[in-house]
């Protein structure tokens, strides 16, 4: 009995653009254990959402393999994949854009059940829908409401209920709380964590918010321009960040604590993210890195295990 639920090997996704090949995801290896959460962090354009969609095969990878519970699902046929989808679901970022404005709440939540035909009896299905609404804390009176009648927090609860409708084992959460206010954000994060405990769900939690990711994740992967630059346990990453990009990212978070804010010496990294179209070989962060040397350009940098379970892709780690 293996404990690994999701594994990818050398996963790549290139998009064809008029200016060249856009390397959105470039050789990512990841594993997610059953009942655990992998946090994926990075700035916009680093390929974190693309990675989330690749793992679910909502996008076809250019290269690389995806394993689910030990089986390689990357060449599953469409019908076989449809069956797999009952086990893997996604919660989208923007609850305003991801719900059909012409469907009622109960129709939205019941849709995956209808599509996958897991419950054929309509009365059973209605029962399931009201159970789901209960689970995510939506009052029964909303059952015939439309998404526009609800606020952002409730809409995101609908998104969560829809993802749970097929009793999945694995959920990709693509920035599920970014569009919400802090007090509502905390409610949704608590809900997701409670559901994980109850149902032993595995999450891949994609976000740009480092404090959220620390709160919810067991393991964290930091991405920069399509590549994983550092991967380790959540506590280790915050105590001992090694990659210069991770360090800069952590230093850039505004801390809601006056003493820390005043005492910390901020290392601001200069410049902006370089283009992901036809990137030069070598470390992709080297253009902004304060420690960059000649060694950093030329050859791609591989992830190295610097201490048990702590992987870093940097020439400074021997």
């Amino acid at each position, binding site marked *: 009995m293996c404990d690994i639920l999701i594994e990818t090997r050398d996963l790549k996704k290139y998009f064809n653009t008029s200016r060249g090949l856009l390397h959105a995801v470039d050789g990512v290896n990841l594993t997610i254990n059953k009942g655990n959460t992998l946090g994926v962090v990075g700035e916009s354009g680093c390929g974190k959402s693309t990675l989330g969609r690749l793992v679910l095969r909502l996008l076809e990878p250019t290269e690389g393999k995806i394993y689910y519970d030990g089986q390689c699902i990357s060449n599953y046929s469409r019908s076989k994949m449809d069956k797999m989808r009952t086990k893997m679901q996604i919660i989208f970022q923007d609850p305003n854009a991801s719900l059909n404005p012409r469907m009622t709440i109960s129709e939205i939540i019941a849709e995956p059940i209808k599509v996958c035909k897991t419950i054929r009896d309509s009365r059973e299905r209605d029962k399931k829908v009201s159970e789901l609404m209960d689970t995510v804390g939506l009052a029964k009176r909303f059952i015939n409401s439309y998404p526009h009648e609800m606020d952002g927090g409730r809409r995101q609860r609908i998104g969560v209920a829809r993802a749970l409708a097929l009793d999945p084992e694995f959920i990709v959460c693509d920035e599920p709380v970014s569009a919400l206010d802090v007090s509502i954000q905390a409610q949704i994060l608590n809900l997701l964590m409670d559901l994980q405990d109850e149902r032993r769900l595995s999450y891949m939690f994609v976000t740009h918010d*480092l*404090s959220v990711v620390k709160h919810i994740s067991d393991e964290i992967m930091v991405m920069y321009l399509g590549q994983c630059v550092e991967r380790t346990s959540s506590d280790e990453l915050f105590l001992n960040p090694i990659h210069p990009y991770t360090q800069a990212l952590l230093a850039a*978070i505004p801390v809601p604590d006056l003493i820390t804010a005043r005492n910390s010496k901020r290392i601001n990294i200069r410049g902006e993210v370089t283009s992901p179209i036809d990137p030069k070989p070598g470390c992709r962060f080297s253009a902004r890195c304060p420690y960059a040397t000649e060694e950093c350009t030329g050859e791609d940098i591989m992830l190295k295990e610097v201490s048990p379970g702590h992987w870093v892709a940097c020439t400074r780690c021997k």
Partner: protein
Amino acid sequence: MEDAILNINDLYVEYVTDDARIFAVNGLDLVLFKGETLGLVGETGAGKTTTALSVMQLLPERTGVIKKGSIKLDGVEITKATENKMRGIRGDNVSMVFQDPMTSLNPTITVGEQIAEVLVLHKKYSTKAEIDNRVDEIMKMVRLQPERKNEYPHQLSGGMKQRIVIAIALACEPKLLLADEPTTALDVTIQAQVLELMRELKEKINTSMILITHDLGIVAQACDKVAIMYAGEIIEGGTVEDIFLAKNHHPYTVGLFNSIPNLTSKASRLQPIAGLMPDPTDLPSGCNFSTRCPNCMEICKEKKPPKFIRNGHMIRCHLFNKSFAGEEDHSCVIY
């Protein structure tokens, strides 16, 4: 209060539509002195942006109405100023940085021309060469290469566009800058750069600033004073030390802090505030926060809490009383 740049007194703003009256700002008092940065914090719908728009006199025509109160900008009452006069004040004495740099620039005009536009409007320079010089100077000030002034907004990244918006706002060296969530649309590393830049520029030209944000981390870093808004009122205000270090807080402030995941300690669960912000068309009688407050008492549902002030730290809650405030001393208050 002679040297106050901005003095808002008992401001009430409503949005009137055919179906409803929305009470957006309900009795707001605010004083800001020269060179100070005030953080205006609150959730979506708290009335932060409405407050800023009232100061700019840019409330949506006909729907947005200032019902009561006064706004004095550098001693000049602006609630009754004519549109013509406001045109002279806007961009010159007070300017605003809007939240989304992607939509606040004109996509059909080069960024250089957009910076020059304010200078021409306020007749700061007479010749074209002088204006060109000043545009180059401002571009350098926000750390952009002057050569890029001939580019259009779509050719620049989000961080660069926000720098252009800041450049436009600061072109005439205003006395007051209103920054409405200037970094919300940006990534953290770019956000850090923009905040650093704004702090430097503010010191250089000694403007006062109101920084509207929902991120308490940004407030801790960038502000001198803080006002926490809830349902159109300031429910707690004071210096950053009062808000971040003092013991006594409004229950809403406590809830706000407990909702943020902490980076240094590992709490297993967040303690969010239960429920939602009250409907601004139908505010509860008594304290606006009473419907969500864990410490709600009978009096909270009936009577609006007065302001309790100690050494400039203001809390608007029935949990506190005269003994917190010491003697009622209204002369030394900030709010």
